[in-house]
């Protein structure tokens, strides 16, 4: 019978000399879900992936992947997983299409299957224009596309994605994420790390937030936003465009922790008391004879929840 649990981790720890990179983490992921792993740089995300993909041996604790022990059954695990690493990986002496073909060959994929899949993937990832280009001559974005596409030449039950969309433009990134979603509908399980929180929100069914090697929370993106997105923001625009004097006055308002200007030209004032801040912004604008053209309370984003979780953790430490 197929297990409902894809990954089970219990008190998993990894130490490098005196440094603890992953500190007794425990979590489970279900088959057929996209499980996100979010954390600041150096939080322990990649080390966790390396242990789950059997590249690194845990210092202590237990982990099973697809019901198999990561220490004693590494080879069996690796036969059933795919990995897109955070770092580039490519065969510099080969052309794009050939490198996909040889990668499939190494995995033991039959020739006819390789050909069909590679043609599909090249089409799907928009790689036609560089299918004959040597890997060494590809741009970083093209190389990343190749790296992601190449992993789908072979079969797998579980895919580890470590920051897979780094270097991709917005359109390609959305295309890649939609491709992942399709594969998940087809039964694939994905373990996904990213620093782009919109991606996690778009793709993940559940998210674990990790900081300093420890898991702080595991929940759905919606619940994380609801529970920890208490810090909100007031977004407003001026008819006159921008005003340095108004910026100074808004920053001085009680409850405003941060004021930033968005690309659109509007302002975003981060605050835990938006209802109290709005009248203050109006008064400041009137005093400067400026006109507010729009003002509203922005909904908490996953980023707000993430920042809140991580900064709370830092404060507690």
């Amino acid at each position, binding site marked *: 019978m197929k297990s409902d649990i894809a990954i089970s981790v219990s008190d998993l720890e990894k130490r490098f000399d005196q440094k603890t990179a992953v500190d007794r983490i425990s979590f489970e992921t279900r088959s057929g879900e996209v499980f996100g792993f979010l954390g600041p740089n150096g939080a322990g995300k990649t080390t966790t992936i390396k242990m789950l993909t*059997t*590249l690194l041996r845990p210092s202590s604790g237990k982990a099973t992947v697809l019901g198999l022990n990561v220490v004693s059954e590494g080879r069996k695990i690796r036969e059933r997983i795919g990995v897109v*690493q955070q770092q580039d990986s490519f065969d510099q002496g080969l052309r794009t299409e050939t490198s996909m073909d040889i990668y499939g060959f190494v995995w033991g994929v039959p020739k006819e299957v390789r050909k069909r899949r590679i043609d599909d993937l090249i089409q799907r990832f928009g790689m036609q224009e560089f299918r004959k280009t040597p890997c060494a001559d590809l741009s970083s974005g093209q190389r990343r596309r190749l790296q992601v596409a190449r992993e789908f030449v072979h079969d797998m039950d579980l895919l580890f994605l470590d920051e897979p969309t780094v270097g991709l433009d917005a359109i390609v990134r959305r295309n890649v994420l939609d491709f992942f979603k399709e594969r998940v509908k087809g039964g694939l399980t994905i373990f996904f790390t990213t620093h782009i929180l919109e991606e996690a929100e778009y793709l993940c069914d559940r998210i674990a937030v990790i900081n300093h090697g420890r898991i702080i929370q595991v929940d759905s993106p919606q619940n994380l936003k609801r529970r920890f997105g208490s810090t909100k923001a007031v977004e407003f625009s001026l008819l006159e465009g921008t005003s340095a004097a108004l910026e100074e006055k808004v920053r001085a308002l009680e409850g405003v922790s941060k004021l930033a200007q968005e690309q659109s030209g509007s302002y975003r004032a981060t605050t835990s008391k938006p209802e109290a801040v709005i009248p203050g912004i109006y008064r400041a604008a009137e005093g400067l004879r400026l006109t507010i053209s729009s003002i509203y309370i922005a909904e908490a984003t996953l980023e707000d929840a993430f920042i809140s979780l991580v900064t709370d953790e830092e404060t507690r430490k």
Partner: protein
Amino acid sequence: MNVYARLVYRNLRANLDRITVFFELIFPLFFIFIQGYGLGGIIPPFEVGGVTLSYPLFLAAGAVTLTVINSGTNAGTQLWFDRKNGMFEQILMGPFTRAQYILSIILATLILGLASSSLVFLIALPVLGASLSVTTSGAILVAIAIFLGTMFFGTFAIAISVALRSSETFQIVSTFAFFIFLFVSTVFYPANLAPAAIRAASLLNPLTYTTDIFRAGLFDAITPTIVLELGVLSVEAVAMFVVAVLAFRRIRV
């Protein structure tokens, strides 16, 4: 298909630069045809293992064994490229073991060593062909010499590739090390006529035994010491293989 065959095929396709391989073949041919004939006029024929050889012939046989050093460099380069380009970790996260991966590099190196030495040998035939008398036992000795020599220098290059952190350092150190191996050996001159210090150093050098065994097989100049030389070369090749495997197991990912 067998997992080793798949990995070896990949190593040969993905990590071997055709231009580099081309120049690695040119290099020994340059010695054979330019240096051999250039110095042949001023160096009189001399005796090696009971057989009198002209200098071009002596050098041609030595130059063929140069290919084992070139193939060895390729083993280190294969591993270096894979580490630099992220394919080392990518392969190890696939359905392969570290042992399979490292053995596949050594196998690819052996194939390359045997193929390139055969090719150089064929091209050098106009020089060598003059007095070739290869017996069955001689052919076996030739094959063993190339096999063990490639094994030693391949695993040596893997070991230094693991130990060094930048490709530039790897290139400089391997070139310097192979330069010493080359000139403190019997490739260019018979070591028994060299000063005592060089003669002693050449007795530690696996390229000396590779070349001596190769020449002995090629010119049917087999002496009683050949068994001892085979033994020393085998021990050195196996020892270096163990060192390379131990070094490889310590690579941190």
